[in-house]
């Protein structure tokens, strides 16, 4: 499996292309693209020079800096979009649900819903790789509109993502990569959310 990282200047987001190393039909290798925040010559060149046939576009959440390249990408390649929202950036998407497992060519994709940063936020797991979008990045968790959203996000991450084995690789929508073990130990966003939880519980006890 070959992983290509591309930094999108529009919105300063991370886009990934995951490709198989074994040629399939017509000598083409299957590939997936995650969060096309842009679609430029470099990305197109990588797909073409590796003889990739895109099997799907995975969207971690429908924010413009992660889907800005979707329209151009769809004009070049006719591939299905998979997202936590049935409509992404004017394109119809295949709705993915929490706990679902997608089979896209040689890739088995696990879907984990982690609402909070946005209602449609999902984490995709492919083998040992976790595409976390904005929900989880190195040292931080996603920004939310309210304390309630933060609690929901922290709980979803703790229950569904951090419970996995520590050597999984975290590939976020912004910033550098990480490992799940590093996030368990050093994520200050999760620590702050836990602390806020404890304070809220103490307050409730005091009131009652």
């Amino acid at each position, binding site marked *: 499996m070959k992983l290509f990282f591309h930094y999108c200047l529009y919105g300063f987001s991370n886009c990934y292309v995951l490709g198989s190393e074994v040629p399939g039909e017509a000598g083409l290798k299957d590939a997936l693209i995650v969060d096309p925040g842009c679609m430029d010559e470099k990305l197109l060149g990588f797909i073409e020079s590796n003889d990739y046939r895109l099997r799907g576009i995975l969207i971690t959440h429908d924010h413009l800096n992660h889907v800005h390249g979707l329209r151009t990408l769809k004009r070049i390649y006719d591939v299905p979009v998979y997202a936590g929202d049935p409509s992404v950036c004017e394109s119809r998407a295949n709705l993915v649900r929490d706990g679902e497992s997608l089979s896209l060519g040689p890739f088995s994709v696990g879907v984990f819903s982690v609402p909070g940063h946005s209602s449609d936020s999902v984490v995709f797991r492919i083998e040992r790789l976790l595409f976390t979008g904005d929900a989880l990045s*190195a040292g931080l968790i996603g920004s939310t509109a309210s304390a309630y959203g933060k609690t929901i996000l922290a709980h979803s991450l703790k229950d569904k993502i951090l419970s996995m084995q520590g050597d999984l690789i975290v590939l976020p929508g912004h*910033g550098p990569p990480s490992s799940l073990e*590093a996030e368990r130990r*050093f994520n200050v966003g999760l620590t702050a959310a836990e602390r806020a939880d404890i304070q809220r519980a103490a307050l409730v006890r005091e009131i009652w």
Partner: protein
Amino acid sequence: MFAFTPCAAEGCGLPVLTGSDSCALHCGDPAFETDRILALIAGEAIVKDLNAAGLFFNESDFSSKRFYGCSFTGSTFSLCLFTGSLFRMSFLDFSSFADCDFSRSDIMYSSFAGSRFKDSTFESSELVHVNYCGCDISECTFNDSNLYNSRFIGAQLRSADFIDCNIKKTFFVKARQERVSFKSSNTAEAIFDVEL
């Protein structure tokens, strides 16, 4: 990306070392494995998908080597040379670096999370999109380096110099600082605090 074949030892889920059927913990002779991996690296200018996690490297020369998708997680490096080396999508987290020289290196989209650095230098380097979260960094220099979009969240920085660096979008949130110099660096563009 480095392979994730699990170690043959019963109950061990760690990935195997490249060219072996066990991890560093369960291989019979770690010194032999280190020599084997070093010989493998010495023979190539470009090293791809190597897994050398958990090994001990002493006075090893990795200078001018290009590493793509490699793992050195949990390894120990002392008196090692990384001058002019290149790392892309590589993982060196939870490792230990003492008296190591990363000057003029080009490191992008890689992770050193939870590592310990002592008396090491990253001078005149490209350190873009690098994860230093939770690192313990003492007596180290990052002078004249580009640290764009790197993260030092929750790191401990003691006697570390970031003189004349580009620290645009570099996160120092909750980083403990003692005798740290940011002289001539663009601190206004770095991020020292966020609403958590």
